[in-house]
């Protein structure tokens, strides 16, 4: 992510050619992500059907959104989704670093160039780094963990439900009518979630920098 700026804003400011490129990346990434998500889902016990579990499974959200055709456009993705993705990316870079260091046994850190998606750690990830690579099974596991962790940061279940709905691609109006709240309240709460997650992401970036 370009530092604290929201990816959505960044996407909105892309010129036609750049946006085309971003869309192409996304078009390639999306089916792979969903395929991966589906196969992961098949392995997971049926607990995802549990309605009580608000944070649910982010894959389920992805599949729901994909089935409803909500995922096709880069611009349709809310900040929350990009924040989640960026957070996951940071964590996987972190993991690869630590594993590599352990394997080598000497605590030496691999040169940056050897790590895909690594160079953006402190300066913010580029779009290419965010969705340029096919998601690995490990990535999916981290995505799931990050999803749960980020949801856990939120104050209450209502905020979690809003975050999940937004990641599934629902509009503010749709979420408002679902929860019987004003659209202004949904906007206000989304901003609250964005702020919380952005703080977390900046923290993760700093942490990575200091390692």
């Amino acid at each position, binding site marked *: 992510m370009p530092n604290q700026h929201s990816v959505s804003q960044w996407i909105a400011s892309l010129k036609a050619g750049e946006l085309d490129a971003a869309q192409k990346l996304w078009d390639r990434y999306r089916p792979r992500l969903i395929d991966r998500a589906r196969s992961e889902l098949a392995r997971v016990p049926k607990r995802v059907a549990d309605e009580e579990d608000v944070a649910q499974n982010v894959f389920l959200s992805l599949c729901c959104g994909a089935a409803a055709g909500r995922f096709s456009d880069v611009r349709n993705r809310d900040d929350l989704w990009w924040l989640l993705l960026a957070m996951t990316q940071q964590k996987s870079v972190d993991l690869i670093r630590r594993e590599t260091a352990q394997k080598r046994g000497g605590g030496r850190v691999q040169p940056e160039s050897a790590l895909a998606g690594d160079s953006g750690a402190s300066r913010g990830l580029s779009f290419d780094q965010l969705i340029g690579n096919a998601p690995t099974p490990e990535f999916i596991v981290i995505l799931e963990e990050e999803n749960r962790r980020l949801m856990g940061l939120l104050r209450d279940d209502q905020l979690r439900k809003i975050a999940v709905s937004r990641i599934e691609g629902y*509009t503010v109006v749709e979420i408002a009518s679902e929860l019987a709240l004003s659209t202004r309240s949904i906007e206000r709460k989304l901003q609250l979630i964005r702020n919380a997650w952005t703080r977390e992401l900046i923290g993760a970036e700093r942490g990575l920098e200091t390692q």
Partner: protein
Amino acid sequence: MQNEGWKRSERVDGLSVEDRIDLACDRFEDQLRTGQTADLAAYLDACDAGERARLFVELVLVDWELRGHGESTKEIDWKQYLSRFPEFSEQLEEARFMHRSAASGDTLCDKPPSTSRRIGHFELLELIGAGAAGEVWRANDPRLRRTIAVKTPRAHHLSDDDLNRFLREGRAAAQLSHPRIIPVYEVGRDGNSVYIVSAYVDGHNLRDWLIRTRPTHHEAAELCRQLADALHHAHEQGVVHRDLKPSNVIMDAAGQPHITDFGLAKWADDGRTMTLDGEMLGTPAYMSPEQASGHASLADRRTDVYALGVILYELLTGKCPFEGDPARVTHQIIHQEPSPPRGILRMIPRDLETICLKALQKSPEKRYRTAQEMAVDLRRLLDGDSIIARRPSLLEKSWRRARQRPAFMAAVTLGIAALGAFGIATKLAHEKHALLGLQMVSLSTEPPEEARFAFAPLDDVSGEPLADQVVYAQGSSPVQVELKPGDYLVVAVLDDGRFHEVYRHVPNPKVEEPGPFNHSYWQQLGNGSIQLPVVAVPDHSVTKDMVLLEGTGSMGLPDGQIGSGLYADRRDYTEALYQRLYGRSPPDLRSIAHGPEHFVTVHCDEAIAIAEHAGKRLPSEVEYECAFAYMATERSANISAGNNGTGAAEAFLSSDVARWTTSRDARIPSLHAESAWVVASDYRIVRGGHLLVTEGVISIERNPNRIGERVAVPRSSVLPGLGFRCVRSISPRFIAN
């Protein structure tokens, strides 16, 4: 779904500011939803002082949304809030802005497609347009991995013949390749219906674009030139559009036009003009006379030239040549000449009007023969060359007028038979005036002096005098001049150098009534001419209390502005001044305070009248701009001279109230679908304060920078925070020889 099931506020300890505000808003919303009275003030009191402003905005937004009133009620709400919470006026403005942008469809952009649908192998992503006769989708072409537009006309009962013709015409359209024509990739059949696949251009159609954008004449000409080029390309391939109109032109992000539905208009139409069997529906505003008279088969490239003429007309004037109910418009298209664009807005360049009217000729033979000819003329105009199209002669105009009004022609003929030679001449002279729309006007000074007069028509849109259209009266006063009805800046100059610049209105006495002010009053004389109120030219001493803003230069502003300099009042017009001028106190209207030093609150026309009476006039907003620029010059000069004093411009600009200007330029979006905007002729620009200042709510220090704030106010409004101050030109702006 209800909220009961939610485990709310799991973590009450260590809540952040935004959490606290969020929770307070939730309680507030809960209260409102359950029909209880929720006291906004109590919520504010309960929260920390530092969080109140933020909470206030949020509560107001929730309150407005939940109560879901119409816009007018909101204005009232807003004012009530304002009177209850004057300390939050800034936050209230913010809330109003946010509320408006939310209402204007910010949420639309995140609207996902309602269903996942396919046509052919295309995935429909987002419905971007829907009309009675079909839908337009943004879609994905998974094979070529590109975004495309898919149009699905709701065509009923397609026969095999129709289908073949559709496919044939689609193939012809697909041959077109021009940067200003949206390429058709394919046409096809999906079950019982047909579809058209074309490139997707991200943008608004010209109709919507015009609501937000106001093209200059130059931009209008350039836009039409590009469209004419594109039309010509298609015509050369044997494809005629037949239904060119703003909704068929897409403006991309760079402001470039792209024509859509080429040759497929009757299939892809949004349902507002024609159905498949040629039956007319909706507005025919862009239809050519040959189409309107039912000879659609005669439509050829000149039909498109006509439609382009209508678009040019609309870009220039903001409305179509003929508007109203379809039957009447159709009749007018066939039988009536359009009003010349310059009759609507006088600032339109004459050559551009000529091009427009040539494209709008009833008879195709008289139009540009090709779109290219029109493009060439527009190009010549843009390059500053003389154009090829010719204006119709006066004789030709009279003939056309006569043909439209047979009764009038019969009257002239009868008149010739009945009257003597002198009578005929007089009659014809009057008819000439009537044809040109001129009105004989007489004007003099008080006391009677030998003054020379210049009449500068005011531009309808900006309210600025049009320097290139000044009419100079022959001889000295009393003078008689023939003028077109409208508003004028009248400059009266005496031999000893004294002068006055006043406003006068030349009426069309058949349809207008005289108003109460010098600049709206008139009297009809027995001979049919109009007597305007006399002009009282002030002494040189009128400027003795004013500051001088020397040679501010035109600062890249339009010609005829304040090149030579300006005398300006150093204070707002006060009750004391009013008392001295009129010998009575000003009308007690909406002033929030009174006293000799308090400024006078009057409506714009009264301010203009007072200024004239005082030997001065109201400034235009351009003059405020110039003074503002001049202030910077003055300050740097003062600094280098080690001078701490207040400069002339700063004295003129510093005020704690908003001030009337003579400038109009207040356009508002039209409620009628036919025209994109209307000139709000009854509004005047107020500088030096936003709405709250004019309402007298905020009393800010006398800050000269506040002159940058600008708002349009109905000219008849008297507002507690809205005064005026006067200026006077250093020398008359227009002098007759």
